[in-house]
């Protein structure tokens, strides 16, 4: 079962999208925060969902003041911090998962301050050494990203930027020019959190972005169910699920794993 990992960084992400495209389906990247509900369980969750066959992971680094996150992720990251989760422990977690044979791409996702406190160059270097493939920083628009951009390029890691429904042509141009790996498409004007319905304007919105870039588009924020995943077919190259998995996990580990499995099932042909 354990595959060898032949590439890392942007190359690994390219292969991930190529594989999914070959199978005519979207790439599914669940989010887990290291340290929630504790260090060991967060790793067990990632291993368990990796075994389902998902395409990649967002590895959450907790921050005390997550302004782009809704109550579910706020609560989870708060617990992770209370459990003593640090940037270093998140990088170590990636290393541990790689040692256990997890081959899917992993992107570190965290707010700017803890990464800057760690040292932006050092973080990118250590992330690469741990086996991570890219970086997503929700409060770092391309204008402010110089401190990470050079080192990501040097280490071959993806530096993912976001686009939102509010992004105008000028910003779409800027973000698509700078993003590597993929573009994180924020589905709605708002914060993270599970939602009942996908926004009605999604088709038109994605088409507007698609007309401007060939880079892979990965949708995040509010994607919560197998039904949502099915609706995205043909629209984007991939999607991220975060809060919905955490909410299922509040019921039980098995419920979380089942939801991940059902969503993955829903995107198969």
């Amino acid at each position, binding site marked *: 079962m354990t595959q060898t990992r032949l590439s890392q960084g942007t190359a690994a992400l390219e292969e991930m999208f190529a594989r999914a495209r070959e199978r005519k389906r979207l790439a599914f990247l669940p989010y887990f925060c290291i340290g929630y509900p504790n260090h060991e369980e967060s790793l067990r969750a990632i291993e368990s969902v990796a075994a389902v066959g998902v395409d990649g992971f967002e590895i959450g680094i907790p921050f*005390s*003041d997550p302004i782009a996150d809704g109550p579910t992720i706020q609560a989870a990251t708060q617990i992770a911090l209370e459990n003593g989760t640090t940037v270093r422990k998140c990088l170590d977690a990636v290393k541990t998962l790689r040692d256990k044979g997890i081959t899917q791409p992993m992107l570190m996702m965290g707010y700017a*301050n803890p*990464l*800057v406190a760690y040292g932006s160059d050092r973080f990118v270097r250590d992330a690469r050494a741990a086996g991570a493939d890219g970086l997503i920083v929700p409060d770092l628009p391309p*204008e*402010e990203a110089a401190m990470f951009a050079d080192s990501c390029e040097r280490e071959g890691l993806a530096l993912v930027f*976001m686009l939102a*429904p509010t992004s105008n042509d000028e910003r779409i141009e800027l973000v698509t020019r700078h993003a590597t790996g993929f573009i994180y498409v924020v589905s709605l004007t708002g914060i993270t959190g599970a939602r009942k319905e996908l926004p009605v304007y999604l088709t038109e919105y994605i088409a507007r972005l698609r007309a401007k870039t060939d880079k892979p588009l990965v949708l995040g924020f509010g994607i919560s169910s197998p039904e949502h995943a099915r609706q995205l077919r043909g629209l984007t190259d991939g999607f991220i699920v975060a809060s919905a998995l955490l909410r299922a996990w509040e019921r039980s580990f098995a419920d979380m794993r089942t939801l991940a499995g059902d969503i993955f099932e829903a995107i198969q042909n």
Partner: protein
Amino acid sequence: MTDLYIRKDISDLPDARGYFGEFGGRFVPETIMPALDELENAYAEAIADPQFHADLSHLQRTYTGRPTPITYARRLSEALGGAQIYLKREDLAHTGAHKINNALGQGLLAKRMGKRRIIAETGAGQHGVGTATAMALLGLECCVYMGSVDIRRQQPNVFRMKLLGAEVIPVESGSRTLKDAINEAMRDWVTNVETTFYLLGSALGPHPYPMMVRDFQSVIGLEARQQIQDMTGQLPDVCVACVGGGSNAIGLFHAFRDDAGAELIGVEAGGRGIASKEHAARFADLDISRPGILHGTRSFVMQDEDGQIMETHSVSAGLDYPSVGPEHAHLRQLERAYYTLATDDEALEAFQTLSKLEGIIPALESAHAVAEAIKRAPTMPRDSVLLVNLSGRGDKDLDTVIGILGE
């Protein structure tokens, strides 16, 4: 005439990217980046429009009660036996603090931009009251985020905001103080950005807020600079102001920044003392404070080794904040301004001293500046002039002070 109330200098920072030297910038989610561009453009248009200045100036004169006077603190000066102390009386501005200056400025801008819903954060409640007041006047909807700890210690202001028609939304996350109120206001803005104007209350946050708030507060220093010369025939030797986010201080300092003889001193909240680690002295405790990124701007931030933001403490809710406006970080780096601190006890002492000697009950925030004046005046010659920005009045703090000092 049009630049009487907002002075724009060509040589002025921030630069085009919103930086004051290495501090400032725009570290926010993509969702609100276009709104910041829109705000920056709308602000640039507004300050180029004489009508905007005329409207603001009219409200300042007929509604806020500007210019606020300068009071010579004769008994305090005599008791200390050194510098002559003068108080810039922002406590006499409508709503009892300098916060109204910015609330009216941004409120007029919001109206100009066609935004009907205004959100704000508040710590001590003075910015919340200022905003609620301005929105009542301008007829705009107003929601104020306030940490539940601050709601408890600033009850009169909570009641005031509600009376003025604002909705006060308690914030239960994190330390439940100003920092968390800003988090929640930013989440609201990210969600409702197309209809909502975020009326940020201090000289912090993403560009253009630090610049815009400074400009709207610079009326304090522009008035004071003229008034003090009219009264004393000289410029002040020292200007003192308290620094939370730093809007009253930057508003005072801005007009004096080219006056080399005027020493500029910002006073941070020393809380229970630096050694206790329970304070909000971002520039004094470099063990736990260093440049970082919080609420969209790069400045000094109190944080642990791992970059997690630390909880702060101050007896005054308005100074209880782990970061500081980026322009202060820059002025400190240039050594154009100096930053010191006053502890809770020193502020409480100054609160009582000013009340007894001058019949002026200062806000606990402003009492930090008074405390520095009390320390510094005796070391200065009798013919020197020390100007204190009395940024607000203390009625809102009576419950807190009664709780600490007893009846």
